[in-house]
């Protein structure tokens, strides 16, 4: 309170007057349910911005401190709109899944999308996945036969030498190359909708660069899953190791199993 002497009595009087004012207030529960009804109605045709921007630019932290979001939507071009719809569908799926358990409700604080990968970042480390499942339609192929089964140009990281084995999954949507000690390179079409999801707790993803390309280093082990494109079904795959993700020439890359960010970046820059 203001303590300038001559005003003390008047200030006290104003405080008392404030308490005596008659402010019409509807029952709080009614206000709460009215607000909820409006939010539910909106959720059907607009994305849920409480989860932040669903664009390709990922921030290293789940919240950008001091950021001012004026909530205005971007100019609504047709492509944009279609994309928002896809994003909305994905978000609703995520909400449906995470809302199923009390732990799930508290778990996801932010969803970030980058390089065809959806990062579900939470305050706590998610419980590890103990099972291992293959991607839909995953099958081994001879390295020289890969190109014929895939729509995008397949590359490899020369720094690791020839892969031990190569698989193609989901009708040529994903190519995976394997080296000893759990090192693998996944590459997939850089379309807008995410293909893979990762559930993350602390430590947060760390910014990195692969040559001229933005990348993110996910330092900890984390649950990994696959989003089936047509119907949005999610397939939990396995507990993944530290991973570097980046996008290059409209193809998404995920390099897993190298111990440090520096080593992963070094290997990633040998992509050709």
């Amino acid at each position, binding site marked *: 309170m203001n303590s300038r002497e001559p005003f003390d009595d008047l200030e006290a009087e104003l405080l008392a007057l404030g308490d005596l004012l008659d402010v019409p207030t509807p029952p709080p529960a009614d206000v709460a349910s009215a607000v909820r009804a409006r939010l539910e109605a909106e959720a059907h045709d607009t994305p849920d911005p*409480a989860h932040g921007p669903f664009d390709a630019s990922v921030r290293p932290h789940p919240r950008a*401190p001091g950021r001012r979001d004026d909530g205005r939507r971007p100019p609504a071009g047709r492509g944009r709109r279609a994309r928002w719809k896809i994003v909305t569908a994905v978000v609703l799926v995520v909400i449906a899944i995470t809302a199923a358990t009390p732990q799930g409700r508290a778990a996801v604080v932010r969803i970030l999308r980058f390089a065809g990968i959806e990062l579900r970042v939470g305050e706590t480390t998610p419980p590890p996945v103990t099972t291992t499942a293959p991607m839909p339609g995953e099958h081994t192929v001879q390295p020289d036969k890969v190109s014929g089964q895939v729509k995008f140009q397949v590359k490899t990281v020369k720094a690791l030498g020839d892969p031990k084995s190569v698989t193609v999954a989901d009708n040529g949507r994903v190519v995976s190359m394997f080296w000893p000690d759990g090192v693998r390179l996944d590459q997939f079409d850089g379309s807008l909708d995410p293909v893979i999801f990762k559930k993350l707790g602390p430590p947060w993803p760390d910014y990195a660069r692969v040559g001229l390309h933005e990348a993110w280093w996910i330092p900890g082990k984390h649950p990994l899953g696959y989003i089936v494109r047509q119907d949005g079904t999610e397939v939990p795959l396995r507990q993944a190791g530290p991973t570097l993700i980046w996008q290059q020439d409209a193809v998404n890359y995920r390099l897993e199993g190298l111990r440090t960010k520096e080593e992963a970046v070094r290997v990633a820059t040998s992509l050709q």
Partner: protein
Amino acid sequence: MNDDEAIERSLAGDLAAYEALVARYSALAHRTASMLGAGDEAEDVVQEAFVKAFRHLASFRRDAPFRPWLLRIVANETHNLTRSRGRRSELTLRLGATASVAAPDDPEGAAVATDRRSRLLEAVRRLPDRERQAVVCRYFLQLSEAETAQVLDWPVGTVKSSTHRGLARLREEVGNELA
């Protein structure tokens, strides 16, 4: 469930958690909207403010208190409303029934007190916009100078000077009768 838990759950899409948060701050939000001039439309303003707050929740700094952040949105909505109506916001509040029974043992004294309160409220109503808003936030809503600055989106210095000028004007009008 404290504010932070409610916010975290709301961010995860849990509307029940947000409902709890709305219920918690509903009365204060109505009070703020009414006192800043929303009048009969306080209910609409408050609903709209809570819907907007949910949309902007991701931009809320979690290390900061929720209350002034929310009231800032309420104040903005109120301001938008009064501006769209193209007129000065008004303090349309009445003194509650309890005002006249404050001192039941002393009917005469109570009447004097009630009369004085009415005149003080009338004087607050007549204050220029800025001074009235500062006085309302600081005394009727009992916000600190820093909170007032955040809610009204003014520098703290402006809050101080507007409050000071408002108090001086009130004192000029009714202060001479202070016991």
